[in-house]
């Protein structure tokens, strides 16, 4: 069963996730009541995972019960939806380097949601947050060497057959190359490391020059 809902509104698809915490708003998302359950609208312009799902990633890349290692939580917009999706039996381990944004993540997301464990740490050092093996590694840290960082995290913490979701921002990897070339090269790196790349989705029009790579170990 997917924890994501789609609604058609005026010819547009709106994504929603079922609230883990009734009545709790993390940013300015809308709360919607459907069949006696509360859902939070999931804005693809603010969340790259929502954009990727609308652009063709399967709805169930992340499933109820999954354990997710989330690298680069920022203030927690996307992690809060992932927390909705994995639900009470799942887990989100959230890692953020910048104390400034981690403050909001801890206050608004981790403190309230029992399935979220926060770490103010550098994703280059997974030993700082290696509390469990995970089903999914999600990486969105906008660093030039982030593919290598993601792979090292997978090596240490992703279970066999687990999923890697990697956001590639062409500009932070090489400003001179065409985005498509950057996406292809990062994909190649994953394949060399033994991953099967199932999909590369361009996040336009929600994000310019960004792609999401879905791979399995």
């Amino acid at each position, binding site marked *: 069963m997917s924890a994501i809902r789609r609604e058609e509104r005026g010819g547009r698809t709106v994504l929603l996730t079922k609230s883990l915490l009734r009545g709790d708003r993390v940013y300015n998302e809308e709360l919607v009541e459907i069949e006696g359950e509360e859902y939070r609208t999931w804005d693809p312009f603010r969340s790259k995972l929502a954009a990727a799902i609308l652009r063709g990633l399967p709805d169930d890349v992340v*499933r109820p*019960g*999954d*354990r997710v290692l989330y690298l680069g939580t920022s203030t927690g917009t996307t992690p809060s939806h992932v927390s909705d999706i994995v639900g*009470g*039996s*799942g*887990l989100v381990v959230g890692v953020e380097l*910048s*104390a*400034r944004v*981690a*403050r909001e993540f*801890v206050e608004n997301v*981790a*403190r309230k949601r*029992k*399935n*979220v*464990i*926060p*770490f*103010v740490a550098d994703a280059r050092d997974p030993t700082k*947050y290696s*509390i*469990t*093996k995970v*089903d999914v590694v999600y990486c969105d840290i906008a660093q030039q060497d982030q593919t290598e960082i993601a792979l090292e995290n997978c090596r240490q913490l992703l*279970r*066999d*057959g687990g999923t890697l979701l990697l956001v590639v921002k062409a500009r932070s990897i090489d*400003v*001179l190359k*065409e*985005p498509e070339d950057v996406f292809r090269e990062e994909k190649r790196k994953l394949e060399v490391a033994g991953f099967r790349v199932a999909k590369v989705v361009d996040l336009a029009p929600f994000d*310019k*020059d960004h792609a999401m790579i879905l791979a399995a170990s």
Partner: protein
Amino acid sequence: MSEPAGNDASMEKIRQESIAAAEEAIRKASSRPDLHLVQAIQALDDTDKFLNVTATRAVEWYGLHFPELFPIVQDNTAMCRLISDLGRRDSYEAEGLQGRGMTDKKVEAVLIAKARSKGGEISDPDLSRVKALASLGLELSGQRDRLNEYVESMMKKVAPNVSQIAGATIGARLMAKVGGLDRLAVLPASTIQILGAEKALFRALRTGSRPPKHGILFQHQEVHMAPKWQRGKIARTLANKIAIAARIDYYRGSEEPSVKAGLMKRIEGIKEKYKEPPKRQERPERSQRRGRFQRRDKPRRR
């Protein structure tokens, strides 16, 4: 899902510990003096803008009543002081003006201007609004000076070597740009050289135009006072020394006079060696100036 999911009591314990550790890390990070400095330099720049806007408005408004005064005084803060202390132009007298450290020549000019002023009458309510605006300008000016002193003295403590080399305000602006001393301390000199010129850099990367030679560092007097053809070289040297200084400040924290001495020697060397402007034809043609900054093959996607 292979792993047995579900969050038991032991996971909740780990969660509580992680939250506590994260909050401690956040607390520690927020008490870092360099982060306070970053806020202070930004407050200084903000205050400068407010001051400028407020004082300019007060001067403009007062200009309806005494338009000849600003061309003589030529300083916004001094104007604010006159407006708020003296009010109507009738009350401008020789002693009063001399007592404010105005030169005799200026005092005379003001008195002549007063006698022949083409300014209109100003009502009490109008005057009190203008005076209030001028006082606000004075208050902002005082606040700006205090922030300036604060930045100077904090920079001496937090980043004494960067202060020495770059100057306190420029050093603080560099830190503000990257988010703290820790980040400045890991940057290569080539990046420090063009901090604050990111737009020009990206333009250069995209279109093959020439990359910028300096960003914030242009504010340094050794750079902007130098002849045009020396600026890039001086900025480069300055950036090299700032990179070293930031590392010493971050990892050691004590002053190291040799860095400054080395800088001055290098700058003297540049000034000596490149005394003359380069000859025109020495610069390669545009089409040959590509190298790393090559034009993209395909036009960028919009």
